[in-house]
């Protein structure tokens, strides 16, 4: 029961989606339509997993007064605070829009933008012509960088742009396509393993 039921559900739901795509019979298509809607609902209901996980981890931290417990309070206040405000005023209220645009937007955008510092310091420390391969990589990267920033063309002339476009259009398309054809096959094989139930690692952590 604990094994067969989930594997059966995976197989039946998946096979309908596959066959409805390739085969024409109307009832397949109808079943597929309903299953797709169900999938959307199930996926949406997973939305509180983040809140649940964080609540679990951070309430433990609070209870034990372990290092950094104060930050757990910060987390709870911002998480539940945001939800309470959003639920009480809705998504079109000015309060919500201001809160979203001035907390989530700057935080999300700035967290990732910190990477610019790492790429700058890695440029100095790590990107070295240690091997022939690293050298090819760096030379191509340098040309593309010059081709993408307007200053490259202003200083070196239009050949930088032409070279960049050629790199993107010919060797890049060839290399990326080679990688992607392989990756697509890998994805298909993985999906097949899950569908027929020989891949079960994803059930890990749900008890035996």
């Amino acid at each position, binding site marked *: 029961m604990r094994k067969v039921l*989930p594997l059966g*559900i*995976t197989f039946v*739901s*998946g096979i309908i*989606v*596959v066959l409805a795509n390739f085969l024409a019979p109307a009832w397949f298509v109808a079943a597929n339509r309903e299953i*797709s*809607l*169900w999938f959307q609902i199930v996926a949406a*209901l997973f939305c*509180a*997993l983040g809140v649940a996980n*964080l609540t*679990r981890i951070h309430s433990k931290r609070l209870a034990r007064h372990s290092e950094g417990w104060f930050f757990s309070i*910060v*987390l709870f206040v911002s998480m*539940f605070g*945001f939800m309470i405000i959003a*639920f009480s005023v*809705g*998504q079109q209220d000015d309060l919500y829009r201001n809160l979203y645009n001035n*907390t*989530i937007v700057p*935080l*999300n*955008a*700035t967290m990732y*933008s*910190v*990477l*610019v510092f790492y*790429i700058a310091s890695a440029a100095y420390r790590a990107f070295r012509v240690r091997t022939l391969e690293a050298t090819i990589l*760096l*030379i*191509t*990267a*340098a*040309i*593309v960088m010059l081709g993408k*920033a307007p200053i490259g063309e202003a200083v070196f002339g239009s050949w930088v742009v032409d070279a*960049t476009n050629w*790199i993107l*259009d010919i*060797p*890049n*398309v*060839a*290399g*990326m*396509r*080679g*990688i*992607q*054809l392989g990756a697509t*096959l890998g*994805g298909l094989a993985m999906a097949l393993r899950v*569908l027929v139930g020989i891949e079960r690692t994803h*059930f890990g952590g749900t*008890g035996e």
Partner: protein
Amino acid sequence: MVTNNPWIWLAAFLTLACYTFPFGDNPVYRFVEHVFVGTSAGYMVTANWFNWIKPNLAEIGNGRYLLIVPFVIGILIYARYIKPIAWVSRIAIAFNLGVASGFILAKDIKPLFITQVIATFQPLDDINNILLVFGVITSLIYFLFTVEHKGAVGVAAQAGRWVMLIALGAAFGSTVMARVSLFLGRVQFLLSEWLFIVK
């Protein structure tokens, strides 16, 4: 000249606080990090609720009782927090992964494999076409794992590796622009919306 909008001040504070991190981990950064994690998790819930869950509950209210089934399946995922019945959360995972894998098997092969193969059927009468065709072939050969890379196969595989290195170099160069763009966006915000230095 700075803005007197308190919301912009809040956004500016959060932005600057994030930038203390590269200079060393510190309490201000840890504070905003937790605000970030908390609000993002809360947002997932509210956005899904307003745009999807609430209207579908209304549909059930309108008599589409069949929709109760996916609601039950979806809620089962939370059983993983209750030890004795943790296994029933597998039902939700199983359904979700079943449909997702079915979707990959249904949709990927044509546009991501066959169309790509067909697009490589280029007449070999032009140096760029020849490079493209043999570039794709050699990079595929590089990824053959049941054939030893010796002799002709070895030469082709080595050529394939070089072609891919050029592609990866292009990815490297493009990433620089991506990372700088992220930073530019924040500097634009600080200089124009907060400090009014630049229009």
